[in-house]
């Protein structure tokens, strides 16, 4: 796969007060590639959300440089374009509505960006369709379920044709069905429209299915790579406030408790089922 860099983060430092002893971010170097699904995980207070807020200039690093497609976030003239390119869905679905109907709400961002009316109506239609909410256009946002609210928030973002969508723990307040609906919609946008997804999450099962993952600890990036590689070396992850995904834990238990000779390859549940089954048919 050809990797085109869409965000570069170079030597970034951030702290919440000029005289704070603790840096919320220290010496972050990270590239985000176009079209990838990148999961960022780490304990509470590790700097995940702070980093996310730096990526569209909601927070400004004290040192270092962040560029989104060659636009530096320190360039005030580029900030509007950066915020169009980098959309953000926050944790609490109730804190991000302005419109009295779903339609108004999705239109709000486009009006702010001066999108011409004819074009706006087309995009409105297409965005609501993309998140499976077209039937809810005339509804009041506050009467929707959490998962539906988050999908409306996503529609408002993709109407601006962004290159990147950041999910900042966007599914952590949802019930299992709402969560699945939101992730399914994002996966489809990722695959079909090539939208880059950066997902800040504590959910290791979700992180496991990302193309790449980053683990943060006390403001630093401490691991980076494919989820299957990161969870292959479980040492230290628990100390970082994380856990192991279910499949990895079960695989270990099957080896240690069940005395089944398994390889370390299986990473998804399906792979583990297949390996168990291959073993059983060999005997």
């Amino acid at each position, binding site marked *: 796969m050809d990797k085109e860099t869409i965000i570069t983060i170079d030597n970034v430092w951030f702290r919440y007060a000029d005289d704070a002893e603790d840096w919320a971010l220290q010496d972050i170097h990270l590239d985000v590639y176009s079209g990838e699904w990148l999961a960022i995980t780490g*304990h509470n207070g590790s700097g995940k959300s702070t980093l996310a807020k730096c990526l569209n200039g909601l927070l400004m690093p004290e040192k270092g440089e962040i560029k989104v497609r060659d636009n530096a976030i320190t360039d005030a003239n580029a900030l509007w374009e950066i915020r169009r390119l980098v959309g953000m869905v926050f944790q609490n679905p109730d804190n991000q509505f302005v419109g009295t109907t779903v339609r108004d709400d999705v239109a709000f961002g486009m009006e702010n960006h001066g999108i011409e009316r004819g074009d706006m109506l087309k995009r409105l239609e297409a965005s609501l369709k993309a998140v499976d909410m077209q039937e809810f256009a005339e509804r009041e946002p506050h009467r929707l379920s959490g998962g539906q609210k988050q999908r409306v928030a996503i529609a408002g973002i993709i109407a601006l044709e962004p290159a990147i969508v950041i999910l900042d723990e966007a599914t952590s*307040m949802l019930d299992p069905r709402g969560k699945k609906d939101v992730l399914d919609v994002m996966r489809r946008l990722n695959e079909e429209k090539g939208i880059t997804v950066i997902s800040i999450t*504590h959910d290791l099962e979700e992180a496991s299915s990302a193309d790449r993952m980053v683990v943060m600890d006390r403001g630093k990036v401490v691991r980076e790579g494919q989820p299957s590689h990161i969870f292959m070396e479980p040492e230290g992850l628990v100390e970082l406030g994380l856990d192991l995904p279910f499949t990895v834990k079960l695989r270990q238990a099957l080896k240690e408790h*069940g*005395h089944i000779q398994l390889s370390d390859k299986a990473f998804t549940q399906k792979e583990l089922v*297949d390996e168990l*089954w291959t073993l059983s048919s060999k005997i």
Partner: protein
Amino acid sequence: MDIIIKNLTHVYQPNSPFERIALQDINVSIASGTFLTIIGHTGSGKSSLLQHLNGLLKPTRGEVIVGNTVLASGSKTKDLKALRQKVGMVFQYPEHQLFEETVEKDIMFGPINFGVSTDEARRRAHKAVELVHLPKTILEKSPFDLSGGQMRRVAIAGILAIEPEVLILDEPTAGLDPRGHREIMDLFVHLNKREGLTTIMVTHNMDDAALYSDEVMVMDRGHLVVKDRPEVVFQDVDRLNQLGLDIPQTMRFLQLLSAKAEKDFVTPLFGIDETADYIAERLKKEWDGV
């Protein structure tokens, strides 16, 4: 403290075009010291039910009896304040309600509100901090300088300092990292088993429901579907699927394995090690051609 709910029906905005039945003819009894988990979809009535337990909502019909307090439609409940002291409610994201300058003051706020002396409130704050496994040094800090997990513990300590007999938890682990999640669940189990607090938890996390509760109660569109031990509730996979509810991940894996084997391996197991033992045993039987 025993809790008995008899023929409880709750209607929002009755006799108006917006009338909506939130709870319909619920009958439940919860024995003192039980760890009960309530599961169900958004809109199933879980939160409405919780709000009856400390008198935030009043029954439209039927009654709720908590210890000696009776909440019934039509009659005024005299000792609501006493009830709220006995039934501690931890809302979602309780750390959003922290407001004092120091952790100690924040924890003391609840007991003082219930008429406890400053000295006694301070003593309780110190004890509550220990109960939630935070160091004493934290008492002098600002609650806003703490990590998310610590802030949640402080908020919970504030409820514990009121010395409730029943603890109500609404999605207590939402937003916590895996370690924070585990630690906080361990804390609730400890409070339930060691301190004897009757615990009623609402969660979307089926693993927690299965692993930690004595009993699981399933709700759907205002109705009580079933209340039983987790092994019994999660046995009925078809019904849970119909209600759009998940099963614990251990059982989901057994489902996948069953489908592959074209057999039925699914059984209510919730711990990873016991599930591994069970799989090993089943596969060895397969291998031996039993």
